[in-house]
């Protein structure tokens, strides 16, 4: 809009140009105010989290102390406490290994499926792709109860292996859809050429389509990873013992003991996971959104 107004202005008599001004100072102020307001609304819980995590007890638990200042010097004590006297590190380790295994399963299932849907399935491939994507919309809160029964039947209750088994149910549908977008952008002729050049179809895929689609595969790796980090419902329903819990559930259930809250350590625990995941997510967000827009917008 800005550039348009600029260009238009050149052709207009001077007295008219005020009407087409790029943006008045007032508008700029409003713009910045709005941006600031929204950013504050979004970020304040995290800022509060981080400040809290460095506060001493006597600072934090005095309602007359400003919550946004350090009345006593900041301390790392809460972090030490988190790492030494809680299962936090176990939760982190569990989360990472679950995420890793989920990523492996997801990639192994998604890459062939997405290829098949874009290249081999003809006209119904796209429709089947949309159908698979809709599976992503089946919420965990609808499935967690029957799945609890299934998990018990195969003796995985109370083990993070149950999460490894179940998480691909939402990573596969979404990542298949994303991956289809990537495969569509690889020209068919590249793999046809490889088949002419002496390779089997699978050989051609392995040597041309896969290397060219590395950015796409990386994207689904990141997404299955972050989606796994985000998950809460299944982890809450399936796993009860501390040694098997993942971060989201572990922090929520273990660091809150009855009515006694270790607020600083709790916030430290949340911030330590939330912010790196957010950073990772942010890098690949545009591709994620391209998937969410159902192809209505070219990502």
């Amino acid at each position: 809009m800005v550039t348009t107004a600029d260009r238009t202005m050149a052709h207009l008599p001077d007295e008219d140009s005020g009407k087409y001004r790029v943006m008045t100072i007032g508008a700029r102020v409003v713009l910045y105010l709005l941006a600031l307001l929204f950013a504050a609304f979004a970020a304040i819980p995290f800022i509060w989290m981080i400040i809290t995590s460095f506060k001493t007890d006597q600072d934090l638990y005095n309602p007359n102390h400003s919550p946004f200042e350090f009345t006593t010097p900041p301390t790392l004590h809460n972090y030490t406490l988190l790492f030494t006297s809680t299962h936090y590190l176990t939760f982190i380790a569990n989360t990472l290994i679950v995420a890793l295994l989920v990523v492996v399963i997801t990639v192994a299932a998604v890459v062939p499926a997405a290829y098949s849907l874009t290249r081999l399935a003809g006209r119904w491939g796209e429709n089947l792709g949309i159908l698979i994507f809709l599976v992503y919309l089946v919420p965990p809160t609808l499935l967690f109860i029957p799945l609890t029964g299934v998990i018990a039947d195969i003796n995985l209750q109370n083990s993070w292996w149950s999460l490894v088994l179940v998480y691909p149910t939402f990573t596969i549908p979404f990542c298949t859809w994303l991956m289809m977008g990537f495969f569509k952008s690889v020209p068919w002729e590249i793999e046809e050429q490889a088949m002419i050049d002496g390779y089997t179809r699978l050989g051609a895929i392995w040597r041309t389509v896969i290397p060219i689609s590395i950015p796409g595969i990386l994207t689904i790796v990141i997404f299955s990873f972050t989606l796994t980090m985000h998950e809460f419902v299944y982890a809450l329903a399936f796993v009860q013992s501390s040694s098997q819990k993942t971060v989201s559930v572990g922090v929520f259930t273990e660091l809150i003991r009855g009515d006694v809250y270790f607020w600083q350590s709790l916030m430290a625990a949340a911030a330590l996971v939330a912010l790196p995941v957010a950073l990772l997510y942010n890098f690949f967000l545009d591709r994620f959104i391209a998937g969410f827009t159902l192809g209505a917008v070219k990502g």
Partner: protein
Amino acid sequence: MTAPVYAAPANAPVEPATKQGRFLLEREGVLGPLLLLPAVVYILALVGFPLILAVLYAFSDVTVGSPHITSTKDFVGLANFRVILNDPVFREALRNTIVFTVVSQVIVVVLATILGLVLAEDFKGKRLVRFLILLPWTTPIALSVLGWFWMLDSVYSPIDYVMREVGLLGPHTPFGPARNMYWLGKTNLAQASVIAVHVWRTLPLATVILLAGLSSIPKDIVEAANMDGASYWRTLFKVKLPLLTPIMSVAILFSIIFTFTDLSVSLVLTRGGPVNDTQVIATWAYFKGIQGGNLAQGAAIALFMVPVLVVIAVLMLRLARRTETT
């Protein structure tokens, strides 16, 4: 040169059938389904089957203690639904789910439009602002809601502190004389808090989808409107927003699903309290089915989400088909 063409013998050798077997994997009709199989089997086994199981559970008497339907005696017909519907807590949960979803999504539509237009402009620090605005969506929900839980603490809430400092809270003030709001302790405030956190959580998603839509509006359309002398607001309401309707619908359909089926916000923030005032379908299904061990009733409660999900799925399919043809 009408070349003297040589015709191969009519019975030219065909590659023998044994050799053709080797090329089976080259056939699209064979390779296609084969590659698709793992993903489809996974989804059928762990989404399709549990969905059916959810329905079976809802008509049975299974509990965590005896989670199997072993004979027809385990089927209890509509008994679960009768119990659920007669339970005032469920009715409140159902009402809350609908109210929370509708109110939060109306707010999200308005705010996402404003925020989308703000982020569509160029200004200093835009990348940072974008990162911050996305935080609610990009962080694991259970952890970020924990942050809100602490923000809304009954004694140490920083919001209360600020209100006290500016003279809104405490003795002889508009919200006084109490020194705290007890955000999560009073029905209306707790419900408002849950709605606010839902707005906070889904606003980023709706905004970025909208932004993607905004950037896809052909420049020449907006330029043509500007040439015609349309003001910013006129261009916005007569050109941009109508063009954004389909993409906005996509964004809102997603947001509705995430809000309607959400367990985390109510569970982490209020555990359904005070006295079930923020109970929703998902939390009630969790308390009954998992914590209470009554899988059958839990499944029956969760099934009440299905109609909304079906409607949204149909709307999504329509939108997807429309974007395909254009």
